[in-house]
């Protein structure tokens, strides 16, 4: 298999070519360039599978392939390279698979619906896929940042796809701007990493996580700008985390994601659920060796994650639009991943990243199918009873929902459970702050179960509540196919890492993902990360007991939430129960006023400041400039008044001038002595 790594660039470039093709000749191709995208992503998927297989043979790849900026005379050289290890190989497969499925789904969602501007759509998808894959294979932080930004661009372009309407451009702007705010910190972090270590490589003996480890151990010294090494590393880590929080829609930069649902649903599935939003979490995982060195950074990650998980889940409870529910659910689920990473559960977080990618892409595509059927009406209160009309969609959607809610034995159960479990044992092991995060995560399980099944019941059960719901638009194979694939994956991917089963039943060797992630390069193994993290584990009466208790509690909460939803909404004529929430209802409807305060910041703080600055600039700064000229001209106009036009005055002034000269020089020269 030697040589497969030489084709890794093709994984990235194929979708890029499809972008170029769609852009250049898309409007002369059938289906607006869709086939180019499908072929390209299929090719990338196959290559990714081959790469995955090669990696499973124990091979890894860490190679510079392009010098972006050659530094002379000892200045740092900025390069692009490929880092193919189990983590990135796994991610490659996930991304290419979902990209492929989304491309196919788009045939149904976009082409069959007669949308215009399809070349632009497929070009955007192609560019996004290429950028995302470039990010995944990046071997250094700068390259990661660059592709991180490019996916942001694609997100902007695709959210704003329907630019002729007022909503999408605004949402696109908000998405880019909010993530840009996070990226600002990220960029400072990148620069700081370079300044500190002279490199931004992720892997190898000259990588920055490794150098940081050595610096803490006193084996090497780096420029820490006058801080203690650990403090400085924490600062740098938190700076990079800014980008993560923005991209993965974590509190407080999560506000863009619900708005981003203005984009086409396949885009939401691909970008705003499965892949791009995952970029933040992936980045933390990618440089986990660096974060693991800083307990403070880890604690903050865990807290952000736990809080976001709970916070977003509560908002999902009251939403009326199906995609809004999914959007808040996405934020919440990424909170879990962050919680996992912060809590020392590197593998668990990666696991949840993977399962979530499948089931959330599934849910979005299912929602897309529903939206097609409902003629682009997303309000769940206009749906109902779709179960009979679209069984494929219903059953796959149900599979995804069960996974999302974390119901045994669907994929989400396993991964969420492990995240919570890891957090719990590390929290018990002397990190009370993790226990707080754990509690929040646990509580969120209940809400997750509730909003998930509220969504299912409102959409598919009961009686149709509108004319379109009674006579929905049919969907074709290109919608059903991807749903089926993902439905199976959502139900089954849990098997890759059945740690609880291993712990409870003592069956060794079924924690495949652990083994997989341990096969990485030196310093990037799950094992190594576990050593680096500052956590120790403690159990509630034995490991197996803890596993059982944890699983039982979270499963119980999920079922409780689902049950409540069943009671309230699985009726023929469901009604809104939000009034029972009292004042909290308004708060939730308004998303805890998160948008409001950000809009307020923009409109009532930044705008007045800029207007004031403009006034200041026009009035004072430019006023001084014009003032100098006015004063000069005014004094000129005074000076010329000396010339009265009367020749006698001239003679007088002349005499006066001469006299002054004579007197002045006479006194000065002592003529009169």
């Amino acid at each position: 298999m030697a040589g497969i790594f030489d084709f890794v660039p093709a994984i990235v470039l194929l979708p890029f070519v499809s972008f170029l093709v769609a852009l250049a000749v898309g409007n002369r191709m059938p289906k607006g360039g869709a086939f180019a995208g499908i072929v390209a992503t299929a090719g990338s998927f196959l290559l990714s599978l081959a790469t995955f297989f090669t990696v499973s043979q124990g091979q890894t790849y860490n190679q510079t392939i392009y010098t972006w900026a050659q530094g002379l005379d000892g200045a740092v050289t900025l390069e692009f390279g490929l880092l193919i290890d189990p983590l990135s190989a796994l991610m490659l497969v996930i991304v290419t698979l979902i990209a492929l499925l989304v491309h196919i789904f788009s045939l149904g969602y976009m082409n069959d619906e007669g949308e215009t501007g399809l070349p632009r759509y497929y070009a955007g998808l192609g560019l996004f896929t290429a950028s995302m894959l470039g990010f995944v294979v990046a071997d250094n932080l700068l390259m990661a940042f660059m592709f991180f930004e490019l996916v942001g661009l694609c997100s902007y372009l695709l959210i704003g796809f329907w630019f002729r309407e007022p909503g999408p451009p605004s949402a696109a702007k908000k998405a880019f701007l909010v993530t840009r705010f996070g990226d600002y910190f990220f960029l400072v972090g990148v620069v700081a990493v370079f300044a500190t270590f002279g490199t931004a490589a992720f892997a190898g003996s000259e990588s920055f996580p490794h150098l940081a480890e050595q610096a803490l151990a006193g084996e090497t010294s780096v420029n820490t700008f006058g801080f203690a090494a650990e403090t400085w590393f924490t600062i740098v880590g938190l700076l990079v985390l800014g980008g993560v929080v923005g991209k993965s829609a974590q509190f407080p930069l999560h506000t863009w994601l619900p708005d981003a649902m203005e984009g086409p649903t396949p885009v939401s599935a691909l970008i705003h659920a499965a892949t791009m939003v995952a970029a933040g979490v992936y980045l933390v995982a990618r440089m986990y060796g660096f974060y693991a060195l800083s307990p403070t950074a880890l604690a903050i990650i865990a807290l952000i994650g736990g809080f976001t998980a709970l916070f977003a889940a509560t908002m999902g409870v009251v939403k009326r639009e199906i995609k809004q529910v999914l959007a808040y659910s996405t934020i919440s689920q990424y909170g879990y991943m962050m919680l996992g990473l912060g809590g020392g559960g590197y593998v668990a977080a990666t696991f949840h990243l993977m399962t979530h990618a499948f089931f959330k892409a599934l849910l979005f595509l299912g929602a897309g199918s529903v939206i097609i059927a409902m003629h682009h009406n997303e309000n769940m209160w206009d749906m109902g009873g779709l179960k009979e009309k679209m069984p494929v969609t219903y059953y796959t959607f149900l599979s995804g929902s069960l996974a999302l809610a974390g119901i045994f034995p669907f994929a989400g159960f396993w991964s969420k459970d492990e995240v919570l479990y890891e957090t719990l044992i590390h929290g018990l092991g002397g990190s009370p702050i993790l226990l707080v995060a754990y509690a929040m995560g646990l509580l969120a399980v209940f809400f997750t179960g509730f909003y998930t099944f509220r969504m299912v019941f409102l959409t598919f059960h009961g009686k149709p509540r509108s004319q379109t719901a009674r006579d929905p638009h049919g969907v074709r194979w290109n919608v059903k196919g991807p749903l089926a694939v993902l439905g199976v994956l959502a139900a089954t991917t849990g098997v890759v890492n059945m740690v609880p089963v291993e712990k409870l039943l003592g069956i060794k060797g079924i924690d495949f993902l652990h083994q997989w992630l341990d096969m990485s390069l030196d310093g990037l193994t799950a094992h190594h990360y576990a050593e680096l993290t500052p956590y120790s584990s403690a159990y509630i009466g034995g490991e197996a007991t803890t596993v059982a208790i944890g699983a039982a509690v979270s499963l119980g909460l999920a079922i409780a939430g689902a049950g409540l939803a069943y009671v309230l909404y699985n009726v023929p004529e469901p009604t809104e129960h939000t009034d029972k929430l009292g004042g909290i209802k308004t708060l939730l409807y308004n998303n805890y006023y998160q948008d409001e305060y950000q809009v307020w910041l923009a409109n009532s703080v930044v705008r007045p400041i800029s207007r004031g600055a403009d006034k200041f600039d026009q009035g004072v700064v430019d006023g001084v400039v014009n003032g100098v000229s006015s004063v000069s001209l005014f004094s000129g106009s005074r000076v010329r008044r000396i010339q009265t036009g009367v020749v006698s005055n001239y003679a007088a002034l002349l005499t006066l001038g001469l006299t002054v000269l004579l007197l002045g020089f006479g006194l000065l020269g002592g003529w009169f002595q």
Partner: protein
Amino acid sequence: MMIEALMAVTFAAALVVFVAPDEYAGRLAAALSLLPVVGSLLMWAQYDASGNALLGGDIAFETDFVWLSLGNLDVHWFVGVDGISLPLLVLTTILTTLAIVSAWTPIDVRQSQFYGLMLFMEANLLGVFTALDFFVWFVFWEAVLVPMYFLIGIWGGPRRKYAAIKFFVYTNIASLVMFIGFIALVFGLGDSVSSMRLPEIAQALRADQLGSFAGLSADALKLVAFVAMFLGFAVKVPVVPLHTWLPDAHVEAPTPASVMLAGVLLKMGTYALLRFNFTMMPDVAKALVVPIAVIAVLSVIYGAILALAQQDLKRIVAYSSVSSMGYVILGLVAYTTYGVGGATFQMIAHGLISGLMFMAVGVIYNTTHTRMLGDMSGIADRMPVTSGIFVAGAFGYMGLPLMAGFAGEFFIFQGSFQSTVHSAMPLFTAAAMFGIVIVAGYLLSAMQRTLFGPFRFDGDYEVTEAAFHDVAPLAVLLLLVIVLGVDPDIFFTMIQQAVNPILETGGGL
């Protein structure tokens, strides 16, 4: 004699176009302006020198002979290029051609004069970037202003007269201040220099041969001269608070003149800062690092905040130029390979991108005859190609990776963050970097309001896609921006070779 030939051809082209009939002037000018493009690209292809022209490095395409002998300070005709000036030369020729093509649509009176002036300005710009004798350099430096004055004054908008005079007088006074500062330095050097050749002066200054002059000790003289020259060049750049001529000039200038103004003329200021202040007097620059860095940060943030408040597309881009040029100042004062080299690279990058943005605004204006945000929306519906390129250019301005602007900005940030000239440099860098958020804010808002949303236009004009020759220059610029963003080493290597000798610390950082 390559440079002389280049200039002679350009001057001759200007003359020919001046007397050409108006109907053909635009086409003729575009065709003739390809000659300098080819010439500069040839120079770029043949360039194999390295080092800084002022500090004893190779000087490519050099010519040097005595032109005037005045007292004991001769004036030489001394031209040549190094890794700093060659990219700027290429930028100038390419941008001029594109600006000329972009003028075909909007310029409908006195065409032959317009294009003649454009070419005349190009010829002088070539002189600015190649002259290595102060005197020759100054002659070209000043001569650039005259055509720009006419370009704004004759073909500009409603307040063109005010803007033209303001630009002209403001920048001339600045030149004077700078001139006095430099001449004082030359006098302070006394007998240690025999001419006004910049290499001679730079090396003498760096060798601490400055004496006292006009009652000032050598150190004080150096400080005074540095400040005077900095102020003089700062007006041209421009940095806050000496920037107020710029928005007026840009708003009133016709699009092609804006392109040249933002794309090349502003770079004259930073080029001169690099060549004079930062190359000749690194010790003073390092001593003044805090005020200079504060000015840089102020330019970035304040300029961006001002852009946020503007309602006129062109004013937005104009203020964002102020903001972008602040980065350049920050990079220069960092005294690191990436800082100074990045600043030089950013000059090129910003030249292309701001040219692109001004042209794109101009293309929209050609159709709508308005640039006010409130007067239109959903333009992308009617002008998809132009809007697409506008969006791409705007993202280039925001520093999207793999476009030239990101390379320039990242180099600068990296260079200034690790700069050792002052312990607060990382903080200044981080503060300046916040500009990338604000720039996204105002450009995205502006695009959302004008390009997107339901189509609405209050004017009497029919909004349709622009002609091919209007869009083609945009596309070319976009392509160049991307090429430079993907492979910055096209210029960055030679820039580093020229920049590293300036850094006394060596290239280590």
